[in-house]
């Protein structure tokens, strides 16, 4: 194992290859931070550039992008409550409140550090798990996928303050997910006769609306900059050093986030958004003194960010071993591999060990480089939060709407972004959680597809969900997640008396 690793490292160290890596990292950060662009767009755009390259060089370039995208996205999530990519949405929950408290530097420092370390940990886990990767992927059939989605939704709702409203928002999110053509039953649903909606609502304009635009409306209504100045009128940027230290003070959050990210990433089709939200809700539920989660707890930044980069490591397994991409980035990356004559499939892990190590190393290097780049510039980036909101609002709205358009070159997505912007604003005002809506929307298709597949498999007998071993285990975990708040309340009462 050591020999191909060293060979890969030597290859990566060559001048041209380092330049490709740097280009990838630069493009990754830039595309990650602008909502609507993201890693998949970056890879698709640079794809023609790779035709003249060696396969390994293409992998280095793509690895550079994939390793850097999520860090770019977390910066806009923290500073502007605008998740650059979908998986960064969980970072908004605590990252943005920290910015409002004038602690943007702390949050960015923690995010960059935990995502770098999360990436490293996940690659370590990946190398260990590689021999049994196939068995793990094969454990998850349709019933298990369905239960996994149930578990994800439940644990997230339980972590919120208002459980009933969280559940209502989740139901609404599921319904939004139904919109469009259903290729199992062969009908279009909930489109109201609008052709554009045949394709369903896309996640990117939905997120842009619910977070970026809603936040700008909220800011307009409230007035003043995002982050308050202190009495002396000084702009305070609490050191990023503090953020780095915060990560090391919470090793449990970091490790559990990385592990959740890697495992969820490994399960094809579930993707990074679920990974980071699950990691967040796990941290929010199981940490001590968790009453500050949602209003600026640094662990609420560490957990999703650790998972966010870790999921790339995990997602490599289904992508490489089965050709089933774990995320949109992976889907296009798969195309790049195939065009360079590397055919993903069961034999790849054995036949092209060197290629895989090259990719792992490129991801690792990209994660570390982009992490340190963001750390060094955090001090300046954080100043955005002090810009007068009357300047920031039109700028963010413009970029958001152009970004929404750029996704598919349709005005329909712009309308969707505006619709969810207003809806998100109403939800902020009426105190409904937006997070459960998003996650339910993300899981809607997966849940329904696997519910229907399972029911067809069981020939209509729903007890099949409890005879499938993986699905039964996930169901029991769901019950545990439901019981956690009750147990905590009980324990608190006992401590009080």
């Amino acid at each position: 194992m050591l020999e191909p690793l060293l060979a890969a490292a030597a290859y990566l160290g060559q001048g041209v290859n380092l330049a490709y890596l740097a280009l990838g990292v630069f493009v990754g950060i830039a595309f990650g931070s602008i909502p609507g662009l993201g890693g998949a767009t970056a890879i698709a755009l640079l794809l023609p550039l790779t035709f003249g390259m060696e396969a390994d060089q293409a992998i280095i370039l793509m690895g550079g992008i994939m390793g850097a995208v999520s860090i770019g996205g977390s910066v806009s999530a923290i500073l502007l409550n605008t998740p650059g990519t979908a998986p960064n949405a969980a970072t908004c929950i605590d990252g943005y409140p920290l910015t409002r408290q004038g602690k943007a530097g702390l949050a960015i420092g923690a995010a960059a550090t935990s995502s770098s370390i999360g990436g490293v940990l996940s690659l370590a886990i990946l190398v260990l798990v590689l021999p049994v990767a196939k068995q793990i992927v094969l454990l998850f059939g349709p019933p298990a996928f369905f239960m996994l989605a149930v578990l994800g939704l439940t644990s997230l709702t339980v972590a919120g303050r208002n459980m009933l409203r969280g559940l209502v928002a989740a139901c609404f999110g599921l319904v939004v997910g139904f919109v469009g053509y259903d290729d199992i039953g062969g009908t279009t649903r909930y489109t109201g006769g609008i052709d554009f909606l045949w394709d369903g609502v896309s996640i990117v304009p939905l997120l842009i609306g619910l977070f970026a635009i809603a936040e700008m409306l909220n800011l307009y209504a409230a007035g003043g900059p995002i982050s308050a100045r202190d009495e002396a009128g000084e702009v305070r940027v609490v050191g990023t050093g503090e953020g780095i230290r915060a990560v090391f003070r919470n090793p449990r959050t970091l490790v559990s986030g990385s592990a959740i990210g890697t495992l969820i990433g490994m399960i094809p089709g579930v993707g990074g958004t679920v990974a980071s939200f699950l990691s967040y809700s796990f941290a929010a539920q199981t940490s001590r003194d968790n009453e500050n989660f949602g209003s600026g707890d640094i662990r609420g930044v560490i957990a999703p960010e650790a998972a966010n980069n870790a999921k790339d490591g995990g997602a490599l397994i289904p992508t490489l071993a089965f050709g089933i991409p774990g995320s949109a980035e992976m889907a296009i990356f798969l195309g790049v591999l195939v065009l360079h004559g590397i055919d993903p499939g069961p034999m790849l892990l054995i036949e092209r060990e060197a290629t895989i190590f090259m990719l792992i190393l490129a991801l690792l290097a990209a994660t570390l480089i982009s992490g340190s780049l963001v750390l060094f510039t955090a001090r300046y980036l954080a100043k955005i939060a002090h810009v007068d909101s009357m300047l920031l609002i039109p700028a963010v709205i413009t970029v958001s709407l152009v970004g929404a358009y750029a996704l598919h070159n349709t005005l329909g997505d712009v309308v969707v972004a505006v619709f969810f912007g207003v809806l998100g604003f109403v939800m902020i005002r009426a105190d409904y959680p937006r997070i459960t809506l998003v996650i339910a929307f993300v899981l809607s298709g997966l849940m329904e597809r696997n519910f229907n597949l399972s029911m067809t498999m069981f020939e209509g007998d729903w007890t099949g969900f409890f005879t499938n071993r993986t699905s039964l285990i996930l169901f029991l975990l769901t019950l545990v997640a439901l019981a956690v708040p009750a147990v905590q309340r009980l324990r608190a009462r006992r401590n009080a008396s």
Partner: protein
Amino acid sequence: MTWRQQGRRLCRWLLLLLPLAGCAPGEDDGTISFDNETVTIVIPYRPGGGFDRAVRAFAPYYARELGTDVNILPENLPGAGGRRAATKVYRARPDGTTLGIFNLPGFVLPEILGEPVDYDLRELSWIGRIESQRYVLLAAATSDIRTLDDVRALPEVTFLSTGYGSSVLAAMQIMAEELGLADPDPIYLTGYPGTADVLVGLVRGDGNLSITPVSTALKYVESGDLRAIAIAGGDSNIEGVPTFAELGYPGLMALDVQRSLAGPPAMEPGLLEFMRAAFMRAVTDPEFEAMAARARLELAPLDGAATAAAVSGHYTFYEAFKTNLTNPNAR
């Protein structure tokens, strides 16, 4: 893409050079030219699949044949079982800047079954066929299913497939009809998001049979996870696996999925001729052939006129199986 072009693209990237002029192909002096033009090829599926792969591999070679500095933009427009993409191409301006890749015979089916669609494939300006992938019948390597007779005798059959409207599902339904299965009411487990998901489901044991394009299936057969029972087409390219014809089912020989390019209806004859000629040059370019071999495309080039004829042929062929091809899960 040559090094020179690639360098030029990189320059545009890094230096923010002049914007592209966005006008229709110039035809002022009677000659057709796509120089500096952007041509969009609409792909009806998500990135990463077989159709996406075929377009992305082919695009640079086609661009080179269309003119100097032509930019071909693959656009993924998944949804509605491909109908969204087909409708978009059908309604586009017939100036050659919007083309689409089509799943045949899959996209023929909704029309034959009398479902509301906003296009007629026979009216499209067919430019040519890139690929034809034959289907192979598969079972898990751990199962007892070894021959077509085993398949016919199975008391319970569960087919795995992608959603309704795919060529795969239609091929399965036709095969079930032709073979005369012992199971009168096979289950069609439809709705897997892609072919790879179907194959993994088969390895996992979600069901017991599936049909997929041969290039995707081959690596699972080679790795020993799946067993190929029979293959469509004239002669077998997997060792030890007989064709349907050899086993006495010549009716199943034609089962395949084709990937063909077309533009909107009513393109100018001269323009169409130009694009067809460029297509044939690109698809037989040795450089492209080498690339296609690496990307495991099953090249089966066919010129525009022949492709159009093949499309009409699909209508006749599938019309005969009309009653077997309704959505098995919509009752």
